[in-house]
């Protein structure tokens, strides 16, 4: 058996692992931080009045939210004003569009009115599906939709021609967020 | 009885009306006969006469000691004028013995063949070759291998080529010779059955043969479709057996001879007559179309002249049938043993000028027409590029060059010509069929 070969491979592996673990240690925090920042920016954009967002960690709430919008619901945030008062909710959802799940944030105020929707990331067809983001009017039309009877209101909204699937995906996300609000969050209250 | 035809093939207009009912007439006695030493497939003959020598009608002028070959006899009495190299209808340049006939010719007599002990030797001595077109020495076919006995002799009276009527006339006028020849062949190879296959467009030939046929000789009416007369297709029509690739027809228990060959066999045996003349259909744009009994070696120009000469608007002269025959660049080439017809075609009767730039539109008609179930379009494309491996992969060597594909192709691709180049290149490379 040629031990020199094995030693060469193992040493390379070990050195590589060492280097990578080091790099990971340096960047890991930043990566988490970046993700949090992006999320925060989105939340801020749909709920501009809030100054702080608090992730909901109550297992019971999360469970019933999950049950309400299976596979679409991701997480929920309390939007707090500078004085700490609850002014609304941010809901992270991942509805399916044309090209797979899209990461979205939907904001609702305490009265159950949608304050806005924003897209974190998506995999839609450039030029077609991506118009849900680039055609500004499309996302804007969700502001003001009421959580109660949301399905009916959404049906009346315009979809982007040629990108029905993507548009419907956004609708689904908003609807899921509204349902979670109506059935779970509105009852959970501000703690 | 009628049999379903083979699969594939085409239906060209048969154009036989002009000569079908014209009895066989004597042909010209030309001022010079040119006897190529290679009028057959196989080894060429060597001249056995010298320049200046006088030869009799029926005298041997060329022979060679090879298995696949056929001796040549002089069809006239006369003086050997020269031994030259001549262009033949097929385009090759071969040694030829040129004889200037005597003033007086006695066409009724000829030098008798030597007495031989069996049919094969007689046929060989007579210089008989297949008169169906391929000119394969007939004697060779009469010695089938031990392991593939022949049980059926098939006489090929299909004459599926348009225009040609020479076999037709032979069958009508010499039915008894044809049947007798068939019997002789069957006896020689030990076959129990003789089947004469005739296309349905020759009812008078069928009737004439049926009158003569009895005991072990059947006349089979076959549908009129080109190339019904091709050997493998004929065997399939008669026996429903495919000749396996690379094998001889005997593998199916069949031996195929042309009806004219059969008649010549009967002549050779009963009259000890060598092959010195044959029936040639001269038709198309000539003034006196007909079926002529032509001395071998007669120049086609003399024959055409004898048939009244060409009309002015003739564009192409073809030796053989229109589907497989050779177009002639010049008419001073001799009639050979395999020359079944001379056609003078006007522009309107023949193919448009061919341009190999014409694309294949992949219509698939050639695939449907090919009686060998090949893909002629692909063979043509590969051959055009000189990709001989492609030709081999698509079984180009199985092509029988019947011309059905070229006939049917809407863009008139020179398919046969291309496939032929491919085949020749492959054979030159030593690829076995």
């Amino acid at each position, binding site marked *: 058996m040629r031990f020199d070969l094995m030693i060469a491979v193992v040493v390379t592996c070990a050195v590589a692992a060492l280097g990578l673990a080091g790099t990971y240690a340096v960047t890991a925090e930043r990566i988490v931080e970046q993700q949090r920042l992006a999320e925060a920016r989105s939340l801020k954009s749909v709920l501009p009045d809030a100054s702080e967002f608090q992730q909901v960690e109550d297992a019971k709430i999360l469970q019933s939210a999950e049950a309400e919008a299976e596979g679409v619901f991701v997480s929920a945030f309390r939007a707090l004003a500078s004085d700490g008062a609850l002014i609304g909710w941010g809901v992270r959802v991942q509805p399916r569009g044309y090209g797979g*799940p899209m990461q979205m944030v939907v904001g609702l105020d305490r009265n159950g009115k949608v304050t806005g929707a924003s897209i974190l990331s998506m995999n839609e067809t450039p030029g077609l599906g991506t118009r849900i983001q680039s055609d500004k009017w499309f996302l804007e039309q969700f502001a003001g939709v009421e959580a109660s009877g949301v399905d009916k209101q959404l049906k009346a909204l315009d979809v982007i021609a040629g990108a029905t699937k993507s548009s419907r995906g956004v609708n689904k996300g908003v609807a899921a967020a509204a349902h979670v609000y109506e059935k779970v969050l509105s009852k959970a209250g501000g703690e | 009885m009628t049999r379903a035809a083979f699969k594939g093939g085409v239906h060209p207009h048969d154009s036989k009306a002009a000569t079908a009912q014209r009895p066989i007439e004597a042909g010209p006695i030309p001022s010079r006969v040119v006897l190529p030493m290679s009028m057959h497939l196989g080894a060429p003959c060597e001249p056995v006469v010298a320049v200046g020598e006088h030869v009799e009608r029926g005298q041997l002028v060329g022979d060679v000691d090879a298995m696949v070959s056929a001796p040549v006899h002089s069809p006239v009495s006369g003086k050997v004028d020269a031994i030259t190299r001549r262009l033949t209808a097929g385009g090759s340049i071969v040694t030829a013995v040129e004889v200037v006939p005597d003033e007086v010719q006695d066409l009724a007599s000829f030098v008798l063949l030597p007495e031989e002990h069996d049919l094969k030797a007689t046929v060989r001595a007579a210089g008989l070759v297949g008169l169906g077109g391929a000119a394969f020495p007939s004697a060779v076919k009469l010695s089938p291998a031990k392991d593939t006995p022949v049980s059926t002799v098939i006489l090929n009276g299909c004459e599926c080529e348009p225009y040609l009527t020479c076999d037709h006339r032979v069958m009508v006028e010499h039915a008894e010779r044809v049947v007798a020849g068939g019997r002789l062949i069957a006896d020689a190879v030990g076959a129990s059955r003789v089947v004469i296959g005739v296309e349905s467009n020759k009812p008078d030939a069928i009737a004439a043969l049926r009158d003569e046929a009895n005991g072990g000789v059947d006349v089979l009416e076959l549908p009129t479709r080109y190339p019904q007369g091709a050997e493998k297709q004929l065997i399939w029509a008669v026996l429903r057996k495919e000749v396996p690739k690379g094998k001889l027809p005997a593998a199916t228990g069949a031996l195929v001879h042309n009806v004219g060959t059969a008649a010549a066999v009967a002549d050779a045996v009963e009259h000890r007559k060598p092959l010195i003349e044959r029936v040639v259909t001269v038709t198309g744009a000539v003034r006196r179309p007909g079926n002529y009994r032509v001395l071998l070696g007669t120049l086609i120009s003399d024959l055409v002249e004898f048939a009244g000469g060409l009309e002015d608007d003739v564009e192409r002269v073809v030796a053989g049938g229109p589907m497989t025959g050779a177009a002639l660049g010049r008419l001073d080439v001799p009639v050979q043993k395999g020359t079944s017809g001379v056609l003078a075609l006007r522009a309107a009767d023949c193919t448009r000028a061919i341009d190999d730039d014409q694309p294949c539109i992949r219509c698939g008609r050639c695939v449907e027409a090919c009686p060998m179930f090949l893909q002629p379009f692909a063979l043509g494309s590969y051959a055009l590029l000189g990709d001989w491996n492609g030709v081999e992969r698509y079984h180009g060597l199985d092509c029988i060059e019947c011309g059905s594909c070229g006939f049917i192709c809407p863009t008139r691709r020179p398919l046969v010509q291309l496939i032929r180049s491919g085949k020749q290149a492959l054979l030159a490379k030593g690829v076995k069929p």
Partner: protein
Amino acid sequence: MSLVQHFAILLVGAALVNNILLTRFIGLCPFFGVSSSMETSLGMSLAVLFVMTMASAATWVFWNALLAPLGVGEFLYIPAFILVIAALVQFVEMYLRKVSPALYRAMGIYLPLITTNCAVLAAATEAVKPGFFKMNVPYSFGFGEAIVYTIGVAAGFGIALLSFAAIRERLELAPVPRAFKGSPMAFITAGLLSLAYIGLGGLFGL
């Protein structure tokens, strides 16, 4: 959804709807490099099927038994997986060389290409690491699923490669403009082929 249906959709989705070559742009080097002849394409397809399946099985085991439990997968998976693939390929190469020199002569130059074939790494990673490549697979595959999925990907690779090889055989006969002869035309044909595969997009909601 019955189990059979589940696996069937997994297979079709991997092979056709998300065809690795023509709708996902992965594994293109051999797609263009090997497709000039039918024989090498067939050989390459089989080699990919073999290596890919083995690779997925191996990476699945390493991931689930070693990397994931230790919590180091996130940053070690690339070297770890590619190491497994490279070793596998070399193994196959040595094996072929010994057992079938003819096959080795025919495929020898393509085997090393498999190491650097994105498709193998992508499929192996996808079959193991949840959410990679944004496939709509919200959960991690079991071993069986990983294998079926990989076979699907490899089958899709084979179908696309073989049909492209047959296409290129015909292209050889075509009088394309001089500047387009060869590779440029291969790319344009691939473009039209992927245009046709667009029609598969979104089939079965995949």
